[in-house]
């Protein structure tokens, strides 16, 4: 019972944050709503027993990636959005489309999922078992993602560096 109440509480916060991201006109408000979504998702992961994933979600996603977003919004001084013709058309088709889509997903899932439930903290194991899996069965994807991150670092530095003419002659 308490599980259901907590799930619904954090679920409502999640959906409210997601809808707020769509409704707000200034990107900084959207960014902060996304941080709220990530925080409540971390709570949902804790309810499922995935404590390490919840901690990583807060440290990496909400604490680093979103800080990067906020940083860029501050740096570029992004202002409020304007309503253009394109955005009006998109809203007329997009919002009903999204509602229909989510209702369809909900209906399909409720009809076909049966009555399987998960208990609180259903996932087994301390982070140790996760680390074992990561470094034994999934070693190749791990190494590939580390190369990917290296490429991303180099790419980001090259792309965001000021152009040649703007650099001072040392």
């Amino acid at each position, binding site marked *: 019972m308490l599980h259901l109440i907590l799930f619904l509480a954090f679920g409502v916060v999640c959906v409210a944050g997601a809808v707020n991201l769509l409704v707000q006109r200034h990107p*900084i408000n959207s960014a902060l709503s996304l941080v709220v979504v990530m925080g409540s998702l971390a709570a949902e992961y804790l309810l499922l027993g995935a*404590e390490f994933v919840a*901690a990583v979600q*807060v440290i990496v996603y*909400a*604490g*680093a990636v979103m800080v990067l977003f*906020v*940083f860029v919004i501050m740096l570029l001084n992004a202002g409020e959005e304007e309503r253009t013709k394109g955005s009006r058309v998109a809203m007329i088709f997009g919002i009903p489309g999204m509602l229909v889509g989510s209702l369809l997903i909900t209906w399909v899932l409720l009809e076909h999922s049966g009555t399987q439930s998960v208990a609180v903290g259903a996932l087994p194991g*301390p982070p140790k078992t996760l680390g074992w899996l990561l470094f034994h069965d999934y070693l190749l994807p791990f190494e590939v993602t580390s190369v990917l991150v290296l490429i991303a670092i180099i790419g980001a530095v090259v792309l965001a560096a000021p152009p040649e003419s703007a650099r001072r002659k040392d």
Partner: protein
Amino acid sequence: MLSIETFVAISLIKTVIALFVLLTAVAYTVWLERKVVGHMQNRWGPTRVGPFGLLQPLADGVKFMFKEDLIPPHVYKPLYIAAPMLAVVFALTSIAVIPVGNSISIGGIQTSLQITDVNIGLLIILGVTSLGVYGVALAGWSSNSKYSLLGGLRASAQMVSYEIALGLSLVGVLILSGSFSLREIVDAQSGTYLGFIPRWNIFPQFIAFFIYLMAAYAETNRIPFDLPEAETELVAGYHTEYSAMKFAMFFMAEYANMITVACVASLLFLGGWHGPLFGPPLLQALLPLFWFGLRIFGFLFVYIWIRGTLPRFRYDQLMAFGWKFLLPLAIANLVVTAFVVAIRS
């Protein structure tokens, strides 16, 4: 097992006590800093309000409450008001997982001196430190002034850069202890080498200890890494446009962060609350608290001592130090520790 009402009641009591102790500690850390820095600079520090100026924090609190809480017209109001609250909330949250002693039993109920012992206690502290960047960044941006924006950007870049070295320096300790739970890390440090040297993590992990201290000084924006609030350069950095209670909240957040860093360092590297126990049972229950408090006081004194002594880093020196020196050193420490542990087992 406790019933849920008892559990909630005990947790509430522990939370209230911990918050009260933390806020008093924050106020008196400010007093300690003013006295110590004053004496280092060959002057007295606060002496007039109460004996040795001990009532100075009270006078400061009254001043902050009665000062005019000005909201300049050009700021982005929602974030301007929310940013100091965010900073304080995240600074005070870490106290929830910090243990200060073993279990005690009062009136037949056994409870540990920690608000909650989670399996991932250390990760929660790291997560809350990561979230603490938001208070600073949003304060700098919402103030709509160039000093604040520059201070906010510098502060967030600095905090994000040194978070990595902070986390990596702690992984060596985690390898030695085998758990994320702070209580288990302290328990792994009981016993002695050679019969008289305590088995504290500072001895095998002294490099990690220094990396942690330096990264923590950068995370809490203290000298020598306090460029974001450098008085001589940026007026007051990200809290230029703040006054009265909101400014006091930033102040509180900074000192609460210092205390959290001191707590984590003493738990992970200096053996927590271990120390000689003697005397009647009541004294034996209270002595671990005293030893813990002694370590915290030592760390705070070192913080203040360094503040009174060193000049500050320039911004490019600061970033180069974090990325090019601390991070490779932390990774090297991690590799060597893992190697030694793997060979030994």
